[in-house]
C-alpha cells in the first residue's frame, strides 16, 4: 500500500509564504515590454500577477494596443473580472480587428453572463455579417469558463437564433450548436420554414432535458 505524499506543516507554511510573495503585482515596465513584443509565453511565465498592468495598459492604449492586449488575454485564458470590465465596452466597436479580438477574448477571461449576452446580441443583431460570424465563433469555441448550468443561456440564445429570418444567422447558430453538441437535430438553415420549425421543437425539448439534468 503506497501512501500519498503530503507536505509537512513546515513545508506548507513555506509554500504559503512563497505563494503570497508571488501574488504581488509584476513590475509594470516588464509587463509593458512583453505586451509591446506580443510575448504571450513570457507573460504566462509571470502568471496572473501581470493582469492589473495589462488592464491598465488596455485602458490607456490606442486601438492597436487594445487589439494586441485583447489577443494576449485570449491566449493567456486567465479568468479576470477586471479584464471583462474593460473589454465589454469595446464589444461593439466598429474597428474590425479590435472587435474580433475582443469578441474572442471575452469568453477566455470570464464566465460573466454579460459576455454571452453581448455575443448573442452581436451574432443576431449586428448589421455586419463578419462581426455576426465571428461572434458565433466566439460562442462556439471560446466560452471556456462556463459551467454546464451557465451554458443554458448560451444554448437558449443559439436555439432562439435558429428562428431568425436571416439565413446567415440561422446558419451560424446551428454551426455553433453543432460544435457544442455534435448534433444538428436535422436543422438545415435553408430548409422550408415548416421543416425548420420541427427541428427547433426538437432543440427546445433537448434544452428542457438539459436543464432538468443540471
Amino acid at each position: 500500500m503506497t501512501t500519498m505524499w503530503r507536505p509537512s506543516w513546515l513545508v506548507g507554511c513555506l509554500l504559503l509564504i512563497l505563494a503570497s510573495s508571488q501574488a504581488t503585482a509584476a513590475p509594470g515596465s516588464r509587463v509593458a515590454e512583453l505586451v509591446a513584443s506580443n510575448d504571450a509565453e513570457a507573460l504566462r511565465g509571470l502568471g496572473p500577477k501581470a493582469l492589473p498592468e495589462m488592464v491598465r495598459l488596455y485602458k490607456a492604449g490606442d486601438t492597436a494596443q487594445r487589439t494586441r492586449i485583447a489577443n494576449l488575454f485570449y491566449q493567456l485564458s486567465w479568468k479576470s473580472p477586471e479584464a471583462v470590465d474593460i473589454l465589454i465596452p469595446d464589444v461593439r466597436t466598429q474597428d474590425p480587428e479590435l472587435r474580433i479580438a475582443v469578441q474572442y477574448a471575452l469568453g477566455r477571461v470570464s464566465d460573466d453572463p454579460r459576455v454571452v449576452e453581448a455575443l448573442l446580441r452581436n451574432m443576431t443583431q449586428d448589421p455586419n455579417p463578419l462581426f455576426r460570424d465571428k461572434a458565433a465563433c466566439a460562442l462556439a469555441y471560446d466560452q471556456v469558463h462556463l459551467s454546464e448550468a451557465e451554458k443554458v443561456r448560451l444554448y437558449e440564445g443559439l436555439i432562439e437564433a435558429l428562428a431568425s429570418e436571416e439565413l446567415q444567422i440561422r446558419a451560424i447558430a446551428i454551426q455553433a450548436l453543432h460544435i457544442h453538441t455534435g448534433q444538428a437535430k436535422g436543422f438545415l438553415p435553408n430548409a422550408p420554414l415548416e421543416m425548420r420549425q420541427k427541428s427547433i421543437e426538437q432543440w427546445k425539448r433537448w434544452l428542457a432535458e438539459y436543464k432538468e439534468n443540471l
Partner: protein
Amino acid sequence: MRRMSTAALLLLALLAAIPTAAAEPSPILVSYSWDDGKTETGPDTFSVFRNARGNVQLSNAFRASGEQSVELRDAAGDHDFPELQGYFPELRTGWLVIHFALLVIDPREELNVALAGPGWFNLDQDGISFWLATRDGNLIHTTDSIPKRLLRLKPFTWYGIDADYDVVRGRYDLRIYEEGIEEPVVSLKNVPNAGSHPGSAVSMFSFIGDLADRSNVVYYVDDVVVATDRKIELPRFIAPGRRAYFVDKHPAPAAADGEPTAVRLERQGDAAFLVRDLREAKRLYEEALTTSENRATLLLKLSDVSFLMGDLAAEKALREKIFGSLDPR
C-alpha cells in the same frame, strides 16, 4: 472487489474462454488485468501519456483483482493531462461489451473516460460514443449531448462499469456495480450514445484527468475488457505492442524530386529492413534521424530493428519514446 457482480462473473467466464493462441478468433478485443505481464505499449495495445506533472503507471496500492491496477494522476495548472489510451479494431456494426473497474481517491476531482472512434474525442459522428466523467463528486455520463448524473461516488470504493453498446443503433445499456453490493447501483437501458449518433464507429478508449487543467485527480483502473458479439480473427502480435512492423505500416514515401536526404535514407533503410539486412537498416535509419523531421517513425523502425536483432531493452526504450510506459517512474 470483495464481491463480484453477476456481470463480472459472466465476463470472467468469457475471459476464461479466450483461446490461448492469439491468432485464433475470439470475441475479446482488449483485456488488461495488469497482472499478466501484458503491459507493452504500442499501436495495437495502448499508449501512455505522462504529460507535464501528471503520471500513469502500474500500482499495487489498490486493485479490483490480482495484484496491480493502473494509477492515473493529474496535476492542476500544468497545461496538460495524463492519459491511458487503448486501441482495438474499428467496429461499425454489432455489439460491443465494455467493462472496467474504477476507484477514485477524491470524487470531487474531475476525471474522464471515453470510448471513441476515428472521429476522435468530440461529440460528432464517429467521435465519442460512451463518456463517463466526474463532476462535483458525482459520476456522470453524457448522452444525447447532455451530461446526466449517475451516482454520488464514494472515495476508495471500487465501481465495476459494464456497458453493452449497440453500434448500429448508437445506444447502450449501462450497469454500475459498487464494491460489496450485489445488485447494480445504476441500471439504464437503451440510452442514446454521447452525441446521439447511430452507427458511430468505435476503435479506442481513453482514461484521462481533465481538459480544463483544474483537476488533481488520482484514480485507479483495473480489469479493462472490450469484447464484441462475434469472434474476430486478429493478427498475432509480431513484436511487443504491434501486430505489424512499423516499416510495413509506415513505409517511407516513394522517391520524388527534391526530397529531403532523410526521406531517401529512410526509404533505403526500409529496403534493407525488408531483406533483413538489419545492420544496414539501422545505420541508414540512424543517419536519417540526424536530419529528419519525422523522428517518431524512424525511432519506431529502429525499435523493429532492435527487436529482430534480439536487443529487447533497446526495442522497449525506442518504442516507449513514442507510446510511453507503464513502468514506475
